[in-house]
């Protein structure tokens, strides 16, 4: 009697469970654009002497007025500022060490990104860059009458570096984007629900044994 009742009850509950899970899966599949949630990301890349950062929620929305703090490896705060309406914030490279960029988007949301010292480049300060461009300009005007033997190794290095910089900018940016993980996908969602069902089985087993005793 008792067994018959509980198995009846269980099958009703299983039906309910199955329909609810179907509903949940339907909601996910029907609205792929909503497969986003509440986490903040910040990523950064270098262009010339400036570090550019972009901050956004995992939904893709930009973080407006988020607090950005930049720390040196030994934990000293170097730069502080707030993102604009597009979630962007840029600052001059404060020092050529690893930079830890921390975003605090209020309400307990925090993200960080570490910009490696190597990514900051070979260290052309604003002043030297200016003199370089002057030198390059001078060199170009001189090119007409000066034979190529007059070009020093140093100048070639500078020119190549500049050209490479320009070419690599978009690539550096997309690498920074790639390095950030994407939001959760169907695998994670289905996996999580699977875990919950598995745990349900464990709890039912334990409680069932207690009941039987």
């Amino acid at each position: 009697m008792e067994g018959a009742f509980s198995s009846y009850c269980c099958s009703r509950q299983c039906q309910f469970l199955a329909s609810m899970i179907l509903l949940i899966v339907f909601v996910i599949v029907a609205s792929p654009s909503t497969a986003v949630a509440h986490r903040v990301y910040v990523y950064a890349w270098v262009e010339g002497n400036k570090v550019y950062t972009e901050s956004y929620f995992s939904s893709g929305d930009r973080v407006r007025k988020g607090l950005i703090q930049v720390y040196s490896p030994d934990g000293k705060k170097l730069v502080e500022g707030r993102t604009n309406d597009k979630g962007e914030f840029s600052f001059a490279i404060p020092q050529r060490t690893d930079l830890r960029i921390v975003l605090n988007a209020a309400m307990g949301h925090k993200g960080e990104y570490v910009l490696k010292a190597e990514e900051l480049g070979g260290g052309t300060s604003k002043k030297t860059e200016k003199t370089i461009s002057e030198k390059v300009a001078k060199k170009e005007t001189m090119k007409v009458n000066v034979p190529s033997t007059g070009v020093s190794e140093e100048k070639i290095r500078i020119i190549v570096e500049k050209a490479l910089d320009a070419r690599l900018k978009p690539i550096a940016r997309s690498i920074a984007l790639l390095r950030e993980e994407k939001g959760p996908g169907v695998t994670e969602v289905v996996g999580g629900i699977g875990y919950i069902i598995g745990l349900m089985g464990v709890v039912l087993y334990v409680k069932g044994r207690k009941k039987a005793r």
Partner: protein
Amino acid sequence: MHISEGVLSAPVLVGGGMLAFAGTGVGLRKMDYDKVPEVAVFASAFFVASLIHVPLGPSSVHLVLNGVMGLVLGWAAFPAILIALLLQAVLFQFGGLTTLGVNTVTMGVPAIVCYWLFHKAALKASPSLSTFATFLCGAGGVFFGAVLVALALVTTGEAFLPAAKLIVLAHMPVMVIEGIITTICVRFIKRVKPEILEVAHGRSF
């Protein structure tokens, strides 16, 4: 409303962890054999709800569903929320393992408060009052959650009132949506399988 890792100080994390442990213990003890599948369904729903993003308001917010969990599950909402948050932390990297306790408390305590405040009115009163109470229950879960998150953030040096105002305001649209979802959900359960609400509550309390 997940609090990320590295925001809160150690004493707050430990305190939250202990409260969550206690709440989960009570929830597990009060959870009947027949109620386990329901708990699992609501844990799954809570787990997935964080992915349903509400594009209204100044910030990025998502569904919580803790109000309806409290109403249907009572104390058993606590273990359900703990498991769902654990999986969100591991699989989605929302919140974090160290903040699991605090997050469980900020979501679980409102569920139980909502149960205490609204379950009688939601289940027994006249249809219009019941609808109203259910709506308040859904909205209240988010509201109390926001207040508790603000309270947790006070320990980091944020002033309570501005923080609470900001979080509550940001979650206004979610409160309304959760109220409506809770109303629809409870109505559906009442029509299809009213034992879930009544029998479960009769036994676990």
